């Protein structure tokens, strides 16, 4: 059912598969040549192959929160500067939170693709850079303004018509605590871009622009059609949910998130009216990132198996009040933006659970639960180090199945924990214990998954930062299941003093011999615990998942 004569269902399908393959090859190039574990182990990155107007042709699996965001960046820059801003051989770098939406550590790289002198698309990527010169190493937890969070780049050409802008590159390098790694990761992103450019021009050499364009329209139309069919299957109506973050990292006040989802015919609207105004602490984000998070939630419920392209999300509208945490304005700090967005995603799932019982599940532990250590490694002549880790936790149960134990949270996607052997080799810190936190999942006919515990012993004085969330809105149960346990942190100092009072810490010095035990939350249970099948209870006991 081709809309144009330049293609047919066969050519369209060949081109569709090629777009996906190109994006996957770009992603492989980025991950395999990256310099920092947060990219190659954490997979805190995404790539997008875009058309000449910035719509997605192909996108790899990657950090879910970056979903669809690369398109918006390309389009916003074009709105401001015109499409002719993008010239052949350019490599444009961007991390401004109010454009790109996320925190300054996320660097977007845009490389226009030219074919026979005409701009026909973009090879883009985004990756988390370890250190962009914030007031504290990596990402400070107590910044009050974006100016404390590191270097902020509006769209900046680091390659102009193929020429590296060495002044700018050097400037970037000297402003980071890890300048070499920063340039290494930039090169990895450029490698991904070049892969995309090369493969895309080859595809055009073979099929020609007219055919590729016609195929693109068919592909987008297929996606849009499938999406609308899926929304039509949801009962029309308004669906609500609300929850709160523990705080913004500075005050003790909870940060509310309110959601209204409206389904009408083939369209869905997500409205965040009533959510918290932007906060002093860094749980804010730019609106583009809110759109991305809403798209992640939408994708969890609507055609999750279908790859994303320019036809996806046509049926979705997102609204957020100006000046709220979801549409923050300068100089709001944005370091920990993902906590609000993780909650937003859970709210969408919660609100729509009654309407989509076959896709629904009880809540998961919710946030990234970040531990950061930094200092001067005595084993390596005082070389500076930073380790940043997200921690896994319990996921929600659903009809017919227990929630998974120790699985990374929604927004972190394919993030893997750091192997202890690699960690101890790299940092002057021992991991004494790492395991499944028994009994932390919510009870139910099907129980919530358990969180984890991980205990560090520092072998020298180091600075510790923590960002743990969701102790107030813990993982709720569904249809009578109970909530999971909240997270917990126990700091046992070298002198024996024990501190269990806090979940968020910024660059606190802890002496050699101190132990830090982190415990992440469990997932929510599903159904009434009295109906739990006996064999599951027995297996849980045998395997010590519950006492």
């Amino acid at each position: 059912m081709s809309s144009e004569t330049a293609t047919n269902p066969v050519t369209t399908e060949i081109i569709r598969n090629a777009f996906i393959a190109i994006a996957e090859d770009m992603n492989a190039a980025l991950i395999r040549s990256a310099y920092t574990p947060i990219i190659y182990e954490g997979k805190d990155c995404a790539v997008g192959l875009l058309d000449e107007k910035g719509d997605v042709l192909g996108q790899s699996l990657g950090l879910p929160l970056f979903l669809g965001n690369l398109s918006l960046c390309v389009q916003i820059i074009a709105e401001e500067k015109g499409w002719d801003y993008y010239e052949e051989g350019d490599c444009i770098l961007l991390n401004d939170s109010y454009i790109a939406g996320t925190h300054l550590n996320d660097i977007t790289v845009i490389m226009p693709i030219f074919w026979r002198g005409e701009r026909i698309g973009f090879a883009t990527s985004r990756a988390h850079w370890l250190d962009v010169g914030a007031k504290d190493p990596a990402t400070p937890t107590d910044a009050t303004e974006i100016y404390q969070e590191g270097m902020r780049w509006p769209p900046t050409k680091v390659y102009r018509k193929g020429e590296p802008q060495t002044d700018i590159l050097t400037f970037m390098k000297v402003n980071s605590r890890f300048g070499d790694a920063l340039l290494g990761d930039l090169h990895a992103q450029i490698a991904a871009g070049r892969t995309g450019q090369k493969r895309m021009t080859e595809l055009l050499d073979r099929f020609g622009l007219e055919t590729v364009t016609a195929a693109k329209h068919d592909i987008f139309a297929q996606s849009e059609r499938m999406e609308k069919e899926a929304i039509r299957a949801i009962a029309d109506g308004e669906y609500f949910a609300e929850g709160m973050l523990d705080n913004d990292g500075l005050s003790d006040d909870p940060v509310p998130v309110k959601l209204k989802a409206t389904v009408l015919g083939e369209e869905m609207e997500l409205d965040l009216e009533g959510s918290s105004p932007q906060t002093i602490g860094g749980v804010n984000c730019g609106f583009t990132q809110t759109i991305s998070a809403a798209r992640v939630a939408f994708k969890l419920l609507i055609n999750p198996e279908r790859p994303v392209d320019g036809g996806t999300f046509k049926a979705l509208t997102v609204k957020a009040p100006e000046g709220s945490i979801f549409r923050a304005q300068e100089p709001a700090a944005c370091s920990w933006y993902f906590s609000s967005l993780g909650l937003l995603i859970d709210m969408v799932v919660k609100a729509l659970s009654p309407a989509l019982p076959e896709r629904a599940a009880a809540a998961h532990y919710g946030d990234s639960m970040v531990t950061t250590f930094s200092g001067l490694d005595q084993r390596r002549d005082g070389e500076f180090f930073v380790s940043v880790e997200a921690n896994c936790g319990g996921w929600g149960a659903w009809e017919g199945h227990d929630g998974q134990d120790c699985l990374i949270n929604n927004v972190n996607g394919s993030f893997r924990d750091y192997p202890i052997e690699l960690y101890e080799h790299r940092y002057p810190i021992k991991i004494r214990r790492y395991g499944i936190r028994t009994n932390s999942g919510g009870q139910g006919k099907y129980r919530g998954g358990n969180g984890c515990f991980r205990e560090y012993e520092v072998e020298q004085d180091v600075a510790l930062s923590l960002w743990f969330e969701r102790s107030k809105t813990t993982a709720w149960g569904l249809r009578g299941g109970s909530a999971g346990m909240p997270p917990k942190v126990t700091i046992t100092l070298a002198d024996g003093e024990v501190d269990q009072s806090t979940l968020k810490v910024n660059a606190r010095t802890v002496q050699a011999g101190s132990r830090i035990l982190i415990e992440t939350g469990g997932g929510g249970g599903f159904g009434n615990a009295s109906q739990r099948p006996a064999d599951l209870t027995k297996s849980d006991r045998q395997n010590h998942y519950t006492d």
Partner: protein
Amino acid sequence: MKYRVSADIGGTFTDLVIQGQNGEVEIGKVPTTSENPALGVLAGIDQLVENPSDIDFFVHGTTVGLNAFLERRGARTLLLMTRGVSDTYTIARGHREELYKLHYRKPEQLVPRADVHEVTERLNWDGSVETPLDQADFAPIIEKVKAEGIKAIAVCFLHAYANPKHELLAREILQEALPGVSVSLSHRVASEWREYERASSTVMDAYVAPVVELYLETLKQELVKSGMDKTVHIMSSAGGAMTDRSAAAHPISTLLSGPVGGSIGGCELAKQTGLENLLCVDMGGTSFDLSLVIDGEAQMTSETVLEGLPLLMSIVAIETVGAGGGSVAWIEGGGLRVGPRSAGSYPGPVCYGRGGSEPTVTDANLFLGRLGAESLLDGKMTLDLDGTKAAMKALGDQVGLSEKGLAEGIIAISNAKMADAMRTITVGQGIDPREFTLVAFGGAGPMHAVELAAELDIKRILIPPYPGTFSAWGMLQSEIRHDLSTNFVSLMSDCSEAKLQGLFDDLIERGRSVLDGENVTAERMSFEHSIDLRYLGQEYTLRVTVEDGETIAQVLERFHALYERRYGHSMREGEVEMINTRVAAFGDFNRPGTAPMNEAVDASPERARRDVTFGGEQYDTPILKRALMASGSEYQSPAIVEEESATTVVPPGYSITIDALGNMIIALEESA
């Protein structure tokens, strides 16, 4: 008369290749006898060799270990890990493979948490001992193993790659108390860091060990009974042959024993023909396997994933795509899709007449005349063309394509998917496929080979003799191979040539003693060295070969060049770090050369003519019988070449020649 025999024991069929003293080859195909695979092998040998005692050399590929894993029929295994961190195995790094799925489930581990036990001991990151092994911890474990009749134990201690002392001690304690229980140690299975991946590999080794041992013992007995009393060899996943004793000591290395035959066959073709760069594709009913031969050598990798479980081991790099003759065409959102779902062999393609109603790639080939209704198994199976036509019409109507348009479309989409995978392993690694020759084999490979080559601008295609049993032929070309590695992290700027040589010498010494144990004489031994390098700060490494007597600077230069080729840039001023040193130890079997084939043939190979569709047009096409195509003869396309195990389709614009060894070389005509 003495023979060398190889057997590729697959799920359905066992392929045999028999080579006489002068290199002449015969093939056989018999049903696999899953209960006791030796019986199938013997039945096959019986058809081809008068007296099994005339067999001088026997090598085979087996899926027995792999099947035990896939069907979860391995031994109940206990896993011992360092106190405090044994849940690393069950947590399995906590990542998700599917991102938009609230109902995601982790892959199921082979050892349930209740069977993972902790032992008090601790090494530091540099291998020094922090807490000695507490022997008292073993008492309850030993008791449990005895009481519950457990047959296999895997041991994986933190940092054991840096110091094996505690693992060795653990084995001593366990073996003394538990004779007959197989014990796998992580530093022996994979001496590399990352405790979860190493534990997963060690568990796999332990899990398949009793099954593989029993299988080897039975096979050996059956063969001896029949009079074949020579050493039994097994293909390893690394592409070498192992003696049955070595295989029993490293059961995990038999896991992917089958598919590597094709790559090793590719290496042999490279030697025979002087074509050193080959892209090898093996297409069957459900999957499409790709591997590369570069400068005459198979490409290796040191990690793979099976059903979500990671395995650290040296293995021929083979990519698998879900595309085969059975791939089904279907409609989604108004668009046409092909695969990855397969109709399998039951019900199979519509044309098999077993109740399949969705058209497949095989149906499309039949519809277009590329496959004859009587082509399969030399006419022993007749295909239902009418059924295929009806199914094509039904699906074509839904997307507005004629039957012919749909059939060609199904093949085009399927070819394009395979070509995307071919691009990923070549272009994606900075390799220009246009300099390669495509080698196609497997039942369906030759049917698609020429069009696949065209997708990547590859101008030369090679179809070896007997493409349907090429993997078995490849096994016959193997040498003994053992891969040894050691984890040694150092900046290259801190490493001297002497230090590097010392590391290699240790590994070579180990390799030499293994080969000694297999009665390989010194003059038949050879060794290849390589190191895994990366820029300081990176995680992923590139494996770089090291030639005898090379300086560090020369090695670094090769690394920079390799890196540049793959990623388009290099960091020549950056520090380079080494992670692992590796040695491959080879033992040469003194194989005879391959005999020339089809030297004198009188009859014309043309058996019939048929209308075949290429690019929407009908061509009156000759059907050639491969056995009658003499060495040195030349043909023009279009042509269909049939033989018992495969059909080769050559669209217009190519020349076909048969070389002295019987290889069919298909070359794009310059004017075309």
